[in-house]
């Protein structure tokens, strides 16, 4: 079998090398003449007998590499025989073929060709823009996270600054926070703090102008060009990007001699591109690649310079310097010495630098003004539907917002971080909670929209239930952290130390369940027995009491139904069946629900 494959491969290579040898090199482009070098190898071409067969047949279009090769042979034959009339007739054939493909008539070949190139490139742009859009969406998202982190840092530094000013040097209220690895309490004076603040403003500024640039690109793709992406599968080619691409195609076309242009055009019309192309030097190109789209949009994106962009100073200088110079000339009776001119320029630079600094400070202060002290203690990286459900939950349920407040009090023992994971590989995990690491407990929602367990697919009420469920886990860890007093972490303690600390702590319930179910299994039984009411209350508020109390209590069971759970096992078979049915039916009826 291997031998047969080898023979096929050898034959294929021989065929390709034969056709490659028959090709024309770039430096051999020319007009009508049968003396050109590239015809020296014509005997290698698979041509009909030139003496016997009358006039060369017209080119044909079957949209395959074979029709392209046949056409190529015919073009070479006609060229050798200098069939000028045949040559001209083919352009009429091209026009007709374009009209057939685009279902439209054109007054001449040139206009047909121009529109055909736009048609080809529109297909390319429609196929490739998604890659660029996805890339910039990801970039913007990552930069927004960095922006939030940077603002939290600046807010934290501001809070610490207030403490230092009133003389609270050693008993910071923000002891569990770090600034880039330095415990916030270790910042002991304003001068040290100002240095850190300057660094952070620089970090913020760099990220901010890059964010604005990336966001401009993303918005341009989503808004200015969205009409083409979303609605236009018609023969409308009135887009600047298509005009540009058509120009590139024309430029490419005009690089070749007339006979070669025939080949180029027939390849396009046969829809034959690299790597199928056989006449390599005259390949039909696709210019509307993802790289082209990105470069085009980056160059033409809407939006002005960010005030944090290093070019912003130059922009202001160009805008205002003339006015300053005119004032200086007027004040000096129309003339300035070299020294005076230097002094005026120095003053202009200083003044513009002050303007830039003030604008940047105002911008940051406005943003910091919108951040409450609580905001920096709960790190919320949720976006889209997850953020929408979370906000509705905090606004609707006092029980839920009270639970959250335990993480943002004046002396919290831990902080809470919400995030979603767009790559979570599991199809069964709706979310998970990671116990405290350096005082931060993290709740991660499944944000992989291809999975049934993702928040995108699950109904809003069930996403709310998942968030409440995970916040209760976080609350249990918060209590444990307050008992074990282990530097903001739960690792490093032996089993004996766990038993000793929990038995002497303020939460005998936790100790009881820990003793009965072990460290890996105590939280769900405790939640099932003691927190289902809390979940049902919050869901009832979230859902504006649209259903019965029993419904919310049944929904609250999701994620708590385990074979060995004593509370679940105390239910009758009918109750268990009802709960299973209520959950399953609700999910099936509200899949892919949006949140507004």
């Amino acid at each position, binding site marked *: 079998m291997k031998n047969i494959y080898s023979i096929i491969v050898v034959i294929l290579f021989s065929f390709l090398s034969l056709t490659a040898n028959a090709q024309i090199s770039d430096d051999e482009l020319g007009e009508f003449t049968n003396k050109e070098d590239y015809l020296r190898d014509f005997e290698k071409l698979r041509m009909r007998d030139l003496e016997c067969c009358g006039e060369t047949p017209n080119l044909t279009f079957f949209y395959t590499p074979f029709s392209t090769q046949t056409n190529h042979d015919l073009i070479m034959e006609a060229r050798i025989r200098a069939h000028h009339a045949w040559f001209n007739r083919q352009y009429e054939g091209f026009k007709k073929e374009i009209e057939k493909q685009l279902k439209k008539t054109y007054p001449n070949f040139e206009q047909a060709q121009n529109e055909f190139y736009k048609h080809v490139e529109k297909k390319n742009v429609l196929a490739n823009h998604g890659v660029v859009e996805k890339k910039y969406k990801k970039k913007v998202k990552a930069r927004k996270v960095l922006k939030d982190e940077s603002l939290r840092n600046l807010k934290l530094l501001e809070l610490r600054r207030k403490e230092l000013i009133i003389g609270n040097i050693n008993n910071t209220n923000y002891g569990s926070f770090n600034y880039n690895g330095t415990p916030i309490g270790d910042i002991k004076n304003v001068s040290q703090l100002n240095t850190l603040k300057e660094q952070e403003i620089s970090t913020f500024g760099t990220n901010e102008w890059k964010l604005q640039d990336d966001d401009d690109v993303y918005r341009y793709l989503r808004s200015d060009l969205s009409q083409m992406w979303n609605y236009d599968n018609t023969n409308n080619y009135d887009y600047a990007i298509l005009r540009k691409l058509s120009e590139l195609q024309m430029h490419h076309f005009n690089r070749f001699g007339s006979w070669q242009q025939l080949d180029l055009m027939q390849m396009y019309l046969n829809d034959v591109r690299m790597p199928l192309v056989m006449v390599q030097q005259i390949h039909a190109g696709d210019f509307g690649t993802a790289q082209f789209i990105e470069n085009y949009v980056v160059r033409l994106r809407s939006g002005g310079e960010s005030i944090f962009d290093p070019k912003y100073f130059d922009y202001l200088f160009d805008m205002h310097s003339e006015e300053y110079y005119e004032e200086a000339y007027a004040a000096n009776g129309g003339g300035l010495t070299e020294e005076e001119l230097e002094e005026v320029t120095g003053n202009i630079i200083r003044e513009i630098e002050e303007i830039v600094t003030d604008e940047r400070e105002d911008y940051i202060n406005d943003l910091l003004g919108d951040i409450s002290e609580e905001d920096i203690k709960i790190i919320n990286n949720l976006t889209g539907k997850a953020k929408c459900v979370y906000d509705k939950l905090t606004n609707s349920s006092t029980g839920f917002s009270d639970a959250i407040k335990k993480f943002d009090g004046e002396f919290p023992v831990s902080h809470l971080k919400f995030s979603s994971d767009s790559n979570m590989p599991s199809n069964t995990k709706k979310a998970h909670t990671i116990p405290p690491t350096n005082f931060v407990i993290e709740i991660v929602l499944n944000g992989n929209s291809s999975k049934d367990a993702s928040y995108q697919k699950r109904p809003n009420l069930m996403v709310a239930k998942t968030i409440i469920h995970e916040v209760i886990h976080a609350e249990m860890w918060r209590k444990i952290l307050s008992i074990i007093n282990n530097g903001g972490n739960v690792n490093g303690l032996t089993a004996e130390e766990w038993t000793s600390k929990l038995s002497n702590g303020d939460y005998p319930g936790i100790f009881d369940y820990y003793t009965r179910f072990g460290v890996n299994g105590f939280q769900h039984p405790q939640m099932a027995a003691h927190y289902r009411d809390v979940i049902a209350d919050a869901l009832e508020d979230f859902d504006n009491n649209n259903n019965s109390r029993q419904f919310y209590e049944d929904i609250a069971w999701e*994620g708590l139904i385990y074979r060995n759970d004593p509370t679940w096992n105390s239910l009758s078979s009918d109750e268990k069946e009802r709960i299973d049915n209520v959950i399953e039916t609700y999910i099936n009826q509200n899949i892919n629900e949006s949140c507004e």
Partner: protein
Amino acid sequence: MRINNKTIKITIGVFIFLFQLSYGQKKSIYFKFESESKEVYLIENGSGENVKELIYLKNKKENGNIIFYIKGQRFVYEKAKMIKKICNSSELSIEELLSPNEVVRYVAKVQKKYPMWYKYPSKEYPKIFIVESLINCRVVLFEVNWQYYIQ
């Protein structure tokens, strides 16, 4: 040959040094990771039923960290702190590559002493490496640490 005090002291010193070398540093432990495997196991996910989950799951984060799941046990490779090595499988002399069930047993054994794991890195416990096969007989080793999570 006369053996004086100095010789005895040197001999004892060498023995202590060799002892430290042998026992002061734990051998690394290696976990098999087959990223292309479609093998599943059954797990309760709180819905009242056993659901099928892939034994090996991998999730690369934007910061370069990688989360590995082996039969539900979570291991984290932190790019900034931990080692990653690529080598030919023939160069690798690993005495034992732990299967998923052995990984679960190993985690349970450590948890018996440290319910929420030891402080990483530890002199008491060996470093853990996830061993993932690449093409052309090459393997990639990720140093990882176990992490607790609850659904």
